[in-house]
């Protein structure tokens, strides 16, 4: 351990704290207190393909492309990656998500799922109106 190492670790810890603390105190509670309707925005290869309400009833979404197959399931006002034939299976490790701002990513199949609220940065409403 040299002096530079200590400074580097300190700098990294500060950066991480700067990102995480506001999220823990405000972001998380905002997302937890959010009681409006939530939607799952599904993007494949940078294009939005689905915008679905997160209902209590379960609903399966199958995504098939030349890259592979994925099965997303909406239930209990949240969403989870149930099946994927990608090699790394990282997308399944995101588990069940149900808070605004949370994401699921399947990089090999270029799938990006994000939970948005009604008032999510304005574009949520537009997207829903469409």
């Amino acid at each position, binding site marked *: 351990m*040299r002096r530079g*190492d200590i400074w*580097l670790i300190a700098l990294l810890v500060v950066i*991480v704290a700067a990102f995480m603390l506001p999220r823990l105190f405000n972001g998380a509670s905002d997302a937890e207190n959010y009681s409006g309707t939530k939607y799952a925005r599904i*993007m494949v290869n940078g294009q939005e393909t689905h915008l679905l309400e997160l209902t209590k009833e379960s609903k399966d979404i199958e995504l098939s492309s030349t890259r592979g197959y994925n099965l997303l399931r909406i239930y209990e006002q949240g969403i989870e990656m149930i099946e994927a034939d990608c*090699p790394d299976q990282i997308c399944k490790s995101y588990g069940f998500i149900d808070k605004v701002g949370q*994401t699921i*990513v399947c990089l090999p199949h*270029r799938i*990006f799922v994000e939970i948005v609220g009604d008032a999510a940065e304005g574009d949520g409403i537009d997207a829903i109106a469409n």
Partner: protein
Amino acid sequence: MRSPIESPDLALKRSVMIAMFTAVAVVLGLVETLIPVNFQIPGAKLGLGNIMVLTCLTFFRGKDAFALIVLKTVLTAFLLGTFSSFLFSFFGAMFSFVMMFGLMKLGRNNFSLIGISLVGGITHNIGQLTAAMIVLGTSKIFYYLPFLMLTGIVTGIFVGIVTRYLVQSLRKVPQFEAMILND
């Protein structure tokens, strides 16, 4: 001092050594997927392959370490069948290499292997996420970066310590010593 014309004998020895380092790095990458360390953070990993990259950077030239990284990334993609995410890991590996190489050259007096390992691990994540951001067209992919950085700090320190032990041990190998002295 390095002689202007490298002897073919030394060049061959070095090539063999790079090949061996690559093999070990690939195997470490495979073994890593079998170790049930659950960080609860998608995409977080130990980064054991970086041990070999760092060792290579310590003993050999930058282009040797570069060769190791390219070979390791391609071989891992073939063996694990992760060719669809090859682009992302390659981008991460390249960014990580440039940063570690730069730090090795410029900041060797201020940073030990631990610091260089940390930078390598975290820039690997940043490079990978940047490639993902470009392809997926959303900066929200960075949502998990702080969490990845947190685990990156811990695994980076660990990898740095392991590398230091490996470097110390390899220095005692006579054949290795000869090669380094000739470099």
